[in-house]
């Protein structure tokens, strides 16, 4: 009925109903049992009510992709089924509280009397534990293990809480035990060895950890979903890591504060989403002019305008690529997995510092909210590159050099004077109106693109690129889904490429694309990376697989699209 090596659970409920608590119990327990887990979330733009879901996949090999087909669904809100119909298959087990669903009740559901069970446990707040234990019971996880987990988690909250949760867990397990034996989910036996070494991490945390490891010590930002998480992460760890964290009055203030701080020697980052980033563009342009490093995180969501604030899209690439008036250098990363986020963030800071440019990190709601197991060893701590000099007395901030990069001084460090100017300026940073100086400065600001191209990360190869005649090309958050689809497909004719750095592209990797059918998959309406790729390489894109509904690609979506490829 289901693939025992790959189980997909979905928990549905209204905002505020505690889905996150359920998965917050389920994921660590399954991880500790040595499984790979992956979880992703979709939710409405409201704080209470509506209908949200979290998907939890439990697999024997690493998977990091959204699956549409559900094995096991817990439906808590009244209108759950309106939205999830398409994801329910013949074998899907649907648990719901008949009392709650009322007229929406469907004969094939399994009635789990949640209300009654949780009030038996001590009240509505225990509903999540009832659900979690029911799910664990179905998955065959030992109830003793779960009660140990509950004890550890709730000890700090007092014996009442522990015992209430234990009662709830017992009720959940008992409920499952009372079901007919046909109702079950089979999993291989736990592989307790692997789990302990693994971490369970969401994308936002990975971004924050990456920033900390990169030596980031300044953030000024204005809240905007899904970019806010990085601000929260660094704010809450400000004291641990000596980070100055500030909530700005608006996005314009945020980037200008970031640039001011960077001018004075900070490793600065700002975080936002597309709409907020629109407002930062003049700041990006200033960054280009004053050659001051900054990292800009754009958590993408569907636009234009406010769009779908809590949904996902890869729609801000073109924006990052062209942000700010005038011609100057930049780089853009779009990591595809939790581990990659950590690494890319460090690269971003180092590159910004080395090349004195704005560097963009493009993520999206789906990637930021996704939680998965990663090996602790995958957390790479890269060497910090900080190139601030102590200024000599005759320091010139914009001294001409062969590579266009001038040694970077900061005010108060050394005996020189450090001037930056939004106007066209001379080597000293003083305003100029000389056409000749202008010509040289324009050139200076662009020369570094050459070196930037040369150090650009080549794409990761998925499958055997050498043998393939079709390349499925992705960037950012689609890595997991492409990996999985290609793995399932198992055809040598199709391989994948994932770009973690989307700009500039390293010309050394262009030959990879020669004489292949090029298929680009991305989560936007027009194919922004496809445009970039063919513009940069001169190689036309044969097919674009696009989705811009606000949902991520599912494994099934990609499989369907790939079937067309194999049948062509």
């Amino acid at each position, binding site marked *: 009925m289901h693939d025992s090596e790959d189980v997909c659970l979905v928990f549905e409920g209204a905002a505020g109903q505690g889905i996150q608590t359920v998965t917050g119990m389920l994921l660590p327990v399954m991880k500790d049992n040595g499984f790979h887990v992956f979880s992703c979330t979709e939710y409405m733009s409201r704080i209470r009510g509506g209908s949200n879901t979290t998907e939890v996949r439990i697999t024997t090999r690493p998977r990091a992709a959204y699956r549409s087909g559900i094995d096991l669904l817990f439906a808590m809100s009244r209108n759950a089924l309106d939205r999830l119909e398409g994801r329910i298959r013949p074998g899907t087990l649907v648990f719901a509280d008949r009392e709650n669903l009322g007229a929406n009740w469907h004969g094939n559901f399994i009635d789990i009397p949640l209300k009654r069970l949780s009030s038996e446990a001590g009240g509505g707040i225990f509903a999540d534990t009832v659900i979690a234990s029911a799910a664990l019971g179905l998955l065959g996880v030992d109830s003793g293990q779960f009660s140990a987990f509950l004890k550890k988690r709730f000890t700090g909250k007092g014996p009442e809480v522990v015992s209430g949760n234990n009662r709830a867990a017992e009720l959940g397990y008992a409920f499952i035990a009372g079901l007919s034996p046909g109702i079950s989910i089979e999993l291989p036996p736990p592989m307790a060895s692997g789990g302990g070494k*693994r*971490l*369970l*991490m969401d994308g936002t*945390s990975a971004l924050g*950890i990456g920033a*900390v490891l990169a*030596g980031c*010590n*300044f953030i*000024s930002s204005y809240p905007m979903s899904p970019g806010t998480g990085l601000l929260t992460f660094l704010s809450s*760890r400000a*004291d*641990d*890591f*000596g*980070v*100055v964290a*500030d909530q*700005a*009055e*608006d996005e*314009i*203030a945020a980037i*200008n*504060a*970031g*640039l*001011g*701080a*960077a*001018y*004075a*020697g*900070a490793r*600065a980052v700002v975080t936002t989403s597309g709409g907020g980033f629109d407002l930062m563009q*003049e*700041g990006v342009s*200033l960054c280009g002019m*004053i050659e001051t490093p900054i990292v800009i995180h754009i958590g993408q969501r569907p636009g234009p305008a406010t769009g779908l604030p809590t949904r996902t899209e890869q729609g801000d690439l073109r924006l990052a690529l062209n942000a700010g008036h005038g011609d100057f250098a930049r780089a853009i990363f779009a990591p595809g997995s939790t581990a990659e986020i950590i690494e890319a963030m460090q690269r971003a800071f180092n590159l910004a510092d080395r090349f004195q440019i704005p560097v963009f990190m493009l993520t999206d709601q789906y990637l930021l909210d996704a939680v998965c197991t990663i090996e*602790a060893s995958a*957390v790479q*701590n890269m060497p910090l590159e900080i190139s*601030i000099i102590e200024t000599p*007395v*005759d320091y010139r901030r914009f001294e001409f050099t062969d590579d266009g990069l001038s040694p970077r001084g*900061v*005010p*108060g*460090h050394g005996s020189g*004077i*450090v*001037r*930056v*100017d*939004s*106007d066209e300026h001379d080597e000293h*940073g*003083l*305003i100029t109106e000389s056409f000749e100086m202008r010509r040289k400065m324009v050139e200076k600001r662009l020369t570094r693109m050459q070196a930037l191209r040369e150090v650009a990360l080549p794409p990761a190869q998925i499958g055997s690129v050498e043998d393939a005649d079709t390349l499925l090309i992705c960037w950012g958050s689609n890595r997991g889904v492409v990996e999985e689809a290609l793995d399932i497909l198992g055809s040598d004719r199709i391989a994948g490429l994932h770009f973690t750095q989307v700009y500039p592209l390293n010309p050394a990797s262009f030959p990879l694309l020669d004489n292949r059918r090029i298929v680009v998959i991305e989560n936007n309406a027009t194919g922004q990376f496809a445009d970039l790729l063919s513009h940069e390489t001169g190689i036309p894109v044969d097919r674009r697989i696009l989705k811009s509904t606000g949902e991520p690609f599912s494994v099934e979506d990609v499989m369907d699209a790939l079937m067309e490829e194999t049948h062509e």
Partner: protein
Amino acid sequence: MSWMHSWRKRMNNSQNTFAMPPGSDIAWCPGCGNHMLLKAVKGALQELGIDRNKLVMVSGIGQAAKTPQYLDVNMFNGLHGRALPAAFGIRMANRDLTVVVESGDGDMYGEGGNHLLHAIRRNFDVTVIVHDNMVYGLTKGQASPTSQRCMKTPVQPRGVLLEPFNPLAFAISLDAPFVARAWTGDVEQAKQLIMEAIRFRGFSIVDVFQPCVVFNKLNTWKWFREHTCAVPEDHDPSDRQAAFRLALKEDKFPLGIFYRNERKRLYEDLAGNERGPLYARPAPGAEAVRRMIDSYR
């Protein structure tokens, strides 16, 4: 080369004299109030004995905002209206630095209004000097937020229709802890007020009346002379109500310190995290990093 040599010599000489950087030339019109204001600022910096290596002047765009170009100091000449956020970033990145913002009435009260509002709420240590010529000088004479009613301009052919912005009442309403007004006709007082403002720990603002002799034919040297008076001797700057009342006075605009609140705490102190300039901060501690990562096990 010879130029390089003279630069070097000049640099040593000009240490803390705040002389013009070599090669620069003042772009202001003859007769413009900015010249006097530059003099006042320079005098204040000299008298305070500020170490120019530890001073950063921050500005936006406009005639006023060119001031730091003429003082041979560390300078962040940023975007129109955005001096204050940059100043905040600079100050947070290095609390050893003295940060002075030079701005115009359009820059600070027009494009930059939201930042002024929230910078005052932050109360970090910064001095804001606003060259208030009641007009957009650099862009050739449109109304600014402080333009007086009925002033005609190419864009306001019926005269200005909006209520002039009252920066002092505004700042006092937000409890900005140091609020003063000066004018370029009295360089000595301007200098003194600027010195006071720089000395003040916290957010200080000095609005300085400055004639734009080209585009503002209404608010001339003469007009300002006739329309200003001293802050009354008996005014108590710690009295917010009185300060507000004084700020609303518009028949003659008082000059001097309107408001001074010594009780406000500095943002830097509240924010904690005092570990020296960010450029000198060490990489994150291995132990703290381990703890952070372990929390995901």
